[in-house]
C-alpha cells in the first residue's frame, strides 16, 4: 500500500516535444485513479514514467514516500497490466502468473501454489494449463490481472485495461475490475481515453491535454462542473452544448434568446464580455410551446438512445448560420421532425466559460467570491 506523488514531472522527447509538462499530482493510498484524455495527451507516457519504462527529463516520482525516479522498473514494487495484456504466448497460464515470482527466485512448488491460489480467486482455476492463445479476451485479461496480483505490488498500473474487449464484456470487466481493486485496496492508476470508463470506475480522475492536467476531481465533480470548455466537451456520453453568449448587464444573450445572468456569475463578468454558455443535454428539457427562457429551434434529428431520445434542434443565428442544440427527452415524448421546440436549461446546471481561454466562470452553484477554478490542478 502506498501513495504516489509526482513533483514537477517533465518528460521531453528528443525534438522538444513535451509529453508531460511540469506535472504535480498526488494519488492517495488505496485510491482508484483514472488518467483520462484524448490520444496524444501524454497520459500513457505519464503511466509509463511511473512504471519506469520512460526515463523522465525532470522532476521526481515518489511511491510510498520513497523517491523512485532513478530506479529500474523492477525495483519500484509495482505491477503493470498492458493494453495487449503481454501474456507470454509460449507459457501456460500457470507459468505466466508465476513468472514474476520466478524472477524473484521463489521456489517452483511455492510459486505454482501461489499462482494456483491467485488464479482460483480470479476464476481461472480450470485454465491453468492452457496457453494464452487458447483463452478468450476476458480470460486473457483476468490472467494478466492474476499475474499482477500474484506479486503483491504496492501499486497497480493499468494501460487501457478494457480497450481490447468487446462492448458487452467491457461492462462486465468494468464492474469486475472495480470490485477487485476495492477488495485488494491497492493504489491503482489506470489510463483510458473513454470518459464513461473513467467516470464509472475511478474514485478520482485527472483529465489531461497536451501534457498538462486540465482538471482533477471525483467523477461527479468533473461531470457536473468541468473546469474548462475542453473538459466540458470531452466528458459525457452526449457532448455538452456549448453556445457563444454575450453578457448584457444582468442578462445573457444566447442564440437569439435573453436569459437572466446567473447571480453567482455576476461579480466575475464584465458587461458586454463574450462568454460560452454550457448545458448538458441531460440537464435540458424540450418544450412544445414558447418559453421565455427557452432556446428556440427546429427539430432536425431524433436519435433513439434506448431510454429516451437525443433531439438535435437547429437554432438560427450566429455568423456561421444554424447551430445545433441537443436535448434529451424521455421515452414516448419524441417530437416530430421539422416541428418547433424550445430547449430550457435547468438554471442551476448552467455553466459559463470565458470565450478567450475557455476557463469556467463562477456560476449558479459556486458561491460569490469562490475561486473561479475550484479543484482544478492547473
Amino acid at each position, binding site marked *: 500500500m502506498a501513495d504516489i506523488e509526482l513533483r514537477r514531472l517533465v518528460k521531453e522527447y528528443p525534438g522538444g516535444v513535451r509529453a508531460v509538462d511540469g506535472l504535480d499530482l498526488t494519488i492517495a493510498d488505496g485510491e482508484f485513479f483514472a488518467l483520462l484524455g484524448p490520444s496524444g495527451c501524454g497520459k500513457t507516457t505519464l503511466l509509463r514514467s511511473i512504471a519506469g519504462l520512460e526515463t523522465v527529463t525532470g522532476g521526481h516520482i515518489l511511491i510510498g514516500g520513497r523517491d523512485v525516479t532513478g530506479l529500474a522498473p523492477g525495483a519500484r514494487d509495482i*505491477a*503493470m497490466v498492458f493494453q495487449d495484456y503481454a501474456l507470454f504466448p509460449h507459457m501456460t497460464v500457470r507459468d505466466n502468473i508465476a513468472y514474476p515470482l520466478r524472477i524473484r527466485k521463489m521456489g517452483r512448488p511455492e510459486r505454482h501454489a501461489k499462482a494456483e491460489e491467485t488464479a482460483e480467486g480470479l476464476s481461472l482455476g480450470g485454465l491453468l494449463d492452457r496457453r494464452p*492463445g487458447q483463452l478468450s479476451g476476458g480470460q486473457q485479461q483476468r490472467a494478466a490481472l492474476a499475474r499482477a496480483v500474484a506479486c503483491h505490488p504496492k501499486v497497480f498500473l493499468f494501460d487501457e485495461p478494457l480497450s481490447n474487449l468487446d462492448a458487452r464484456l467491457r461492462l462486465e470487466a468494468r464492474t469486475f475490475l472495480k470490485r477487485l481493486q476495492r477488495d485488494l485496496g491497492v493504489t491503482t492508476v489506470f489510463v483510458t481515453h473513454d470518459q464513461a470508463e473513467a467516470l464509472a470506475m475511478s474514485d478520482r480522475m485527472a483529465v489531461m491535454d497536451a501534457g498538462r492536467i486540465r482538471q482533477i476531481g471525483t467523477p461527479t465533480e468533473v461531470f457536473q462542473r468541468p473546469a474548462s470548455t475542453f473538459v466540458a466537451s470531452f466528458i459525457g456520453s452526449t457532448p455538452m452544448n456549448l453556445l457563444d453568449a454575450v453578457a448584457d448587464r444582468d442578462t445573457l444573450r444566447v442564440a437569439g434568446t435573453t436569459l437572466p445572468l446567473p447571480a453567482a456569475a455576476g461579480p466575475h463578468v464584465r458587461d458586454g464580455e463574450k462568454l460560452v454558455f454550457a448545458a448538458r443535454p441531460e440537464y435540458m428539457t424540450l418544450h412544445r410551446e414558447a418559453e421565455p427562457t427557452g432556446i428556440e429551434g427546429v427539430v432536425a434529428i431524433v436519435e433513439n438512445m434506448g431510454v429516451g431520445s437525443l433531439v438535435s434542434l437547429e437554432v438560427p443565428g450566429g455568423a456561421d448560420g444554424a447551430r445545433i442544440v441537443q436535448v434529451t427527452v424521455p421515452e414516448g415524448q419524441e417530437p416530430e421532425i421539422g416541428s418547433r421546440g424550445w430547449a430550457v436549461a435547468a438554471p442551476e446546471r448552467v455553466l459559463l466559460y470565458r470565450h478567450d481561454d475557455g476557463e469556467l466562470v463562477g456560476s449558479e452553484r459556486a458561491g460569490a467570491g469562490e475561486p473561479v477554478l475550484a479543484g482544478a490542478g492547473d
Partner: protein
Amino acid sequence: MSPRELVGRVGFYVLIAVITAFMALPVLWLLLAPFDRTPTLTTSLPEWTWQNFAGLLDNPYALASLGNSVLLALGSMVVVTVLGALAAYALSRVRIPGRDGLLYALLLLSSIVTGTAAMVPIFLLMFELNLIDSQLGVVLVLSGGLLPAAIFILKDFMDATPRSYEESARVFGAGPLQILRDIVLPVVRPGIATIAVWTVVNVWGNFLTPFILLRSPDKSPAAVVLYTFYTEGGQADLGLISAFSLLYSIPVVAMYVFVNRRYGFRFHGGIKR
C-alpha cells in the same frame, strides 16, 4: 467439355508428366544406382548388390568426411544462430541512424563473401590469419557469408515480438539476458529453427570454400571427398559416387522432415496468439 477443351487438357497433363519425369529421373537414379553392380549414367533396374557401400568402407576418407561435414555444419550453425540472434535482437530494439541501409548493404555484400569472386582475397586473408587447413577457418568464412541474411530474417521475427512482452518482464524485475532467454528466444523459436536448418543445408552443400581452404584430405567434408572418387583409369567411379551421394543426402532430408514437423518453416516473423 468440348473436344477442343479435352485435347487441351490431355496435352496439359502430358506436358506435366514429361516435366515430372525429367525432374524425377535424377532422384530415381540416386535411389537405384547405389544398389547396381555396374552403375551407369542411365537409370535402369539394378542387379541388386551392396558392393558399392562395401567399397565406401574401404575408402579411407569416405565415412570420416561425413563426420567432417557434420562438424562444419554444426559449428557454423552455432555461430550463425548465436551471433545472428544477438545481433538481430540488438538491431531490432536499438535505434541507430542508417540501420536499414546497413542491413541491406550487408545482405548484398554477403553473397560476395562466400562467392567465387572473393575467393582469392579470402584465401589471402585466411593465410595471414594462419587459418589455412583449419576447420575453424572454414566455419568462420561460411558463417560470415550466412550471417547477414540470418540477421535480416531474424530481425523480422524480433520486430514482430511486441515490446510489451519485454516491458512487462522488465516491470517484474527481469534483466536483459533473462528477458532474452525467457521471453524473446522462445517466442522467435520458429525463426531460429529456420535459420539453423538453412545454415546446415548451406554448409552441407558448400564445395568451393572447404575445397580451397582445406589442404589435408582427412579434414575434408563430404562435398570435397565426393570429388575424389575416381577409378584407377581416371574414370568417375559411379558406384562409389552414387552410394556416397545417397548417404550424403539422407541427413539433410531427415533434418528437414524433423524440423518441419516440429516447428514448421517460416521466413517471416509473426506470432500466433
